[in-house]
């Protein structure tokens, strides 16, 4: 069941396939008053990370912490406010839809709501084939059809379903269509934007395993966004923890789960239920006080300080930088190694 951290991660010592530096995505929110300029909503605030070929990077965080925005910002589906996105040495930031076409065949995305993400007026054959018509217009109709049939088989759809419409499928099947649509271009990176959060638990496992199988057989890189820590743990090699658009901690999976350094990560991991009643009973649960602050007026200094069990006066003054805290383990906390409480 567990993804072996080493299997497809052999490249991680080479150059990263994707580098994100200081990515910011702000949305102007109208203040509702005349002559008062809109307030920026900092959905993603200064996020940097590298992704290596064949690697699966998990992105976790609460609702509204900017996970999806980060994924779309990387793919330029939302125009980032600032920062660099470098894909195999090419800068993507600021490219318009026309210039991005070159890179779209390498960079694909699987969306959260499987049915709503499919055009209800197109057959699934047309939906899956459409990327080919844009990126490989030289293909004949028959070749296109063959490729569609092949990919449908790969994702576990029967070829005779090709002329049906999305509403005739179940949620899990719709997500298989979504996966096929993303995979048909044989991309190198897929952003999975909560691909299973809308699905039944039993179906979730099927889709996760499908994505993982495809990742391993094609050496895909994944950015896997989810709020479900168990799923992220299952599929990722490395995990990034986001809070209010800021990176709290980024580390190898084992290192993050076994030795979380950031108080927020500790709280998140302590909230994951353990499927063993004895252990679950004796588990130390860290309960965070209060609500997620509004991203319109994030706290000064460290954004997590208002809910942090070990917050100190310094946290309100200075934003903690992301610092090395062990091998391939970075954390953004002033007191990650201090023994407070």
């Amino acid at each position, binding site marked *: 069941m567990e993804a072996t951290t080493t299997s497809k991660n052999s490249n991680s010592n080479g150059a990263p396939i994707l580098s994100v530096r200081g990515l910011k995505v702000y949305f102007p929110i109208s203040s509702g008053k005349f002559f008062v300029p809109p307030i920026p909503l900092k959905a993603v605030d200064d996020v940097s990370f590298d992704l290596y070929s064949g690697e699966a990077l998990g992105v976790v965080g609460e609702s509204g912490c900017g996970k999806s925005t980060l994924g779309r910002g990387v*793919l330029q*589906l939302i125009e980032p406010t600032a920062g660099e996105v470098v894909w195999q040495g090419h800068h993507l930031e600021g490219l318009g*839809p*026309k210039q*991005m*076409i070159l890179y*779209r*065949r390498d960079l*694909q*995305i699987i*969306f959260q*709501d499987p049915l*709503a*993400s*499919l*055009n*209800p*007026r*197109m*057959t699934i054959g047309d939906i899956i084939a*459409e*990327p080919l018509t*844009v*990126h490989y217009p030289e293909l004949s109709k028959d070749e296109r059809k063959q490729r569609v049939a092949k990919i449908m088989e790969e994702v576990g759809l029967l070829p005779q379903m090709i002329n049906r*419409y999305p*509403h005739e499928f179940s949620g899990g099947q719709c997500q298989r269509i*979504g996966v096929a*649509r*993303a995979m048909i271009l044989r991309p190198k990176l897929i952003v999975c934007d909560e691909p299973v959060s809308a699905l039944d638990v039993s179906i979730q496992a099927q889709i996760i395993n499908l994505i993982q199988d495809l990742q391993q057989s094609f050496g895909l890189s994944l950015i896997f966004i989810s709020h479900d820590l168990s799923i992220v743990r299952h599929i990722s090699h490395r995990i990034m923890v986001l809070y209010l658009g800021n990176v709290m901690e980024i580390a190898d999976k084992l290192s993050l789960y076994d030795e979380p350094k950031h108080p927020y990560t500790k709280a998140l991991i302590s909230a994951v239920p353990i499927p063993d009643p004895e252990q679950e009973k004796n588990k130390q649960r860290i309960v965070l006080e209060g609500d997620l602050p509004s991203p319109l007026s994030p706290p000064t200094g460290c954004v997590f300080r208002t809910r942090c069990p070990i917050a100190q006066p310094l946290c309100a003054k200075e934003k903690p930088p992301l610092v090395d805290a062990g091998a391939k383990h970075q954390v953004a906390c002033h007191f990650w190694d201090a023994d407070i409480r």
Partner: protein
Amino acid sequence: MFAYVVRRLGSAIPTLFIVVTVAFFMMRVAPGGPFDREKQLPPEIEANILKVYNLDKPLHQQYFDYIGNIIQGDFGPSFKYLDFTVTDLILAGFPVSLRLGLAAILIAVVFGVTAGTIAALKQNSTFDYMVMGLAMTGIAIPNFVMAPLLALVFGVYLSWLPVAGWNDGALQNQILPVITLALPQIAYISRLTRGSMVETMHSNFIRTARAKGLAEKIVVVRHALKGGLLPVISYLGPATAAVITGSVVIEAIFDVPGIGRYFVTGALNRDYPVVMGVVIFYAVLIIGLNLVVDLIYGFLDPRVKVE
């Protein structure tokens, strides 16, 4: 689909029957009659006239006679336009109204959909506000203001077009009536299109289309328009029926020999057969055009099964 059409046409018969019955008795309940004059007619003459038109029979007898006649396609003679049957009147006027109405609807769809789509794509831009402002004005100005205004500007001041008249359907005589008919429709269709396109462009499958790397033009034309136009299609059914049956105001102001005037003059004169004739005609058009709309719906949206 053929079976569906036949079934729909079959279900139109009871609808028409109800329309005919309600209209027939409502006409008779209304006070006054077709031969009431300011000056009282001698009772013998009045009795004679009533006898000629079978108005002396009991009401239920007249009703059954009428139903029997229309089943045979006989809509009876007009009481006011002597020597004309109702069929004659409709056949003479309808081609004129149809020509003007179809031109107006066509223009309205082309301009309305284009303006509405651009406004939706440039949501909250100056263009958007301008188009929607104009559309609001277009809906707010009644045609009895717009028609004389256009006649005044283009007919009297600029002398580009005739002020009124039909001239056997010469092009320049048709322009002003068509524009007057089209303007409120353009306004309405552009608002409908904008609203629905704004919604469609925010749906998830549009995001998917962009992620595929499609050019924005294809995203709009292939993915958004089909769904975005559904409300416009539904509106077009009854709107076309209303526009091609003419407008009494526009026909009066521009002196166009269409059938719009019969709706009003027939009712005012208590010209029972004419009123019944145009009501049935209008009902048939509405039923037919709604069927067409439903067929187009089934074609545009696979979730609507036409079976």
